[in-house]
């Protein structure tokens, strides 16, 4: 069993092109790497505004990190819709501003990247989403952290801190990564409290403050006392939770300042990894076309703990974090049933934390979830 896991992992690493390999190449030829760092304009496309305490802010932070690289000039455009118009925006940045690396930072930009990338082989397109597959243009990269891992850790904290045994998950849209995050949250909570239940609520919009506030209120009315929100800007969710006096977990960036009393911890991206790709493009180095990873590859972070979290819980969370980093802790492990009674994994079966195919196909919610994905299995 272990052998096959290791082999598949090795194959996966080979297939996706190992960042570590590229790094060692550059280490072997340091003089070459430094000499060829061309000055470059990079363009960031945001689906909202940068200061949204959420998805876009996480990218904005990364953009500024990347802008500090030598010879890099940063261009940004906000409020780019996830429609064919984004193609025009990308082309505009390339043709009119001379951009050579583009970061279309929203999940929904991928089909449009697929249309534009073949036309501009001299431009690198770095997409915040792990959708790259064999046959896609070589000048595109998909990178994304496995947020289900830090959600699992938030879940542990939630499981320990919840007094009512009811936690809540607010998701924006019925998409696979939202479900994976939700499952991670529940599995983490259940790993410390097997009887815990989680109300799952989908608002239907990436961004709708009134609906999100209402969602929090109705969950709290139902007895939920820990909430996590997977929307573009969880600011409203956290603040409303704080006002109702319950605990909350964060998403995207560090939201601890918004809920001094109730914040537990949260899942954060580490989009700054994109700097590696820019370096590679500048120096002609190699880069992976698909980089997905959790704590093991430093693609995700854990928010600082809130004041309410006691030492014992913090230690427990950090132990689990280490488990992910060392690849000893599998998130999806058997025996596992979904919340409609179907068996997902038998006892002893585990899913590799980097099994993209499985995660892509997650259309179920694990046992303990109250709610539906709305997708046929």
């Amino acid at each position, binding site marked *: 069993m272990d052998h096959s896991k290791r082999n598949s992992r090795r194959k996966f690493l080979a297939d996706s092109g190992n960042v570590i390999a590229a790094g060692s190449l550059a280490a072997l030829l340091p003089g070459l790497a430094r000499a060829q760092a061309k000055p470059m304009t990079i363009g960031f496309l945001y689906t909202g505004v940068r200061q949204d305490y959420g998805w876009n802010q996480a990218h904005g932070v990364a953009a500024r990190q990347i802008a500090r690289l030598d010879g890099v000039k940063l261009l940004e455009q906000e409020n780019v819709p996830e429609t064919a118009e984004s193609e025009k925006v990308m082309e505009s940045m390339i043709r009119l501003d001379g951009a050579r690396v583009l970061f279309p930072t929203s999940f929904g930009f991928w089909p449009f990247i697929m249309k534009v990338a073949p036309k501009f082989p001299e431009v690198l397109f770095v997409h915040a989403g792990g959708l790259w597959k064999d046959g896609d243009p070589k000048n595109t990269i998909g990178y994304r952290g496995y947020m289900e891992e830090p959600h699992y850790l938030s879940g542990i904290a939630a499981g320990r801190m919840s007094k009512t045994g009811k936690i809540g998950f607010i998701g924006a849209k019925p998409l696979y990564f939202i479900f994976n995050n939700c499952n991670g949250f529940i599995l983490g909570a259940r790993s410390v409290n097997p009887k815990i239940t989680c109300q799952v*609520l989908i608002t239907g919009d990436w961004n*709708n403050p*009134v609906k999100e506030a*209402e969602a929090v209120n109705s969950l709290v009315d139902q*007895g939920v006392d820990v909430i996590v929100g997977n929307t573009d800007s969880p600011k*409203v969710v956290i603040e409303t939770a704080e006002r109702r006096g319950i605990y909350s977990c964060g998403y995207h960036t560090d939201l601890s300042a918004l809920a001094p009393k109730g914040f537990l911890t949260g899942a954060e991206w580490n989009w700054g990894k994109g700097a590696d790709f820019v370096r590679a493009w500048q120096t002609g180095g190699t880069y992976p076309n698909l980089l997905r990873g959790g704590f093991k590859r430093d693609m995700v972070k854990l928010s600082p703990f809130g004041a309410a979290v006691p030492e014992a819980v913090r230690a427990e969370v950090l132990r689990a974090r280490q488990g992910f980093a060392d690849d000893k802790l599998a998130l999806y492990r058997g025996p596992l049933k979904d919340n409609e009674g179907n068996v997902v994994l038998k006892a002893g079966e585990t899913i590799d934390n980097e099994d993209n195919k499985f995660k892509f196909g997650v259309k179920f919610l694990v046992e303990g979830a109250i*709610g539906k994905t709305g997708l046929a299995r």
Partner: protein
Amino acid sequence: MNPGDIGWWGVALAVAGGAIRISTPYLFVSLAETLTEKSGRVNLGLEGTLLMGAMSGYGVSFLSGSPWLGVLAAALAGAAFGLLHAVVCNLPRVNDVAVGIGLFIFGTGLAFFLGKPFVEPRADRLPVWPLGGWSDVAAIRAALDVSPLFFAGIAVAFAMRWALANTRWGLIVRAVGDNAEAARTAGYPVNLTRTLATAAGGLFAGIAGAFLSLSYPGTWAEGLSSGQGLMAVTLVIFARWHPLNCFWVSLLFGGASALGPALQAVGVSSYYYLIGAAPYALTLALLIASSSRRHRLVGAPGELSINR
């Protein structure tokens, strides 16, 4: 049954709580539009006005530390926009519906433009009055956490009703709205009256915006308003241009908005888009039922361009 587990009662409570929470902006915009329409103008630009109010309220609260100062700023910003609507509409041959749409675009754009620096910081919010302290159930207590603006809105509704019926000023507004020619012959200043009424309407719409950004949901972000300002026109029709009816109508719409998330919280998770459309479908149904080819809508001011 443990005290936290209230099941379907939770839906009822969420709807009731939502009715109180979400109704306040609806109340203020419907009162705003009632006054404006009573004087014979239609203002479709309340959405832009509302957002300008929300932005100024949040910004001033953040910069000054006082949310009430924010509300004042919001009111003034709203009044300014109402004034703009009135001034442009006072020009001859200008269609007030079109100007409203223009203000919608302009106001929305200006609000987001000026409001960009305020998206990140946290502004001090308005206090709430905990009226549910008598209950042990947390959900009831939360449903009865009421903002003072809720009561302010009710007060304005009563004041407006009294003023329209009993004061000379109210008489002038109604006269101007029902028959401008007759009012002019009687010596009433038609344009000035409409200007003041529309500006006052803008003031209330600004306060509605301040409620959204300083009370519930209590944040400044794009997407804050989901058309509350635009709905004002339909709310007013529902309310038959009676200020007190505005209160009930806004409660109804507030409750309807809360229905979707409340149902999901108990596990009814399909059809959330259709449930979200319920208020609009309801309004349309009501409109169809109560309109008549022969008579204009009962209570509608005679000069309203949309009723000709």
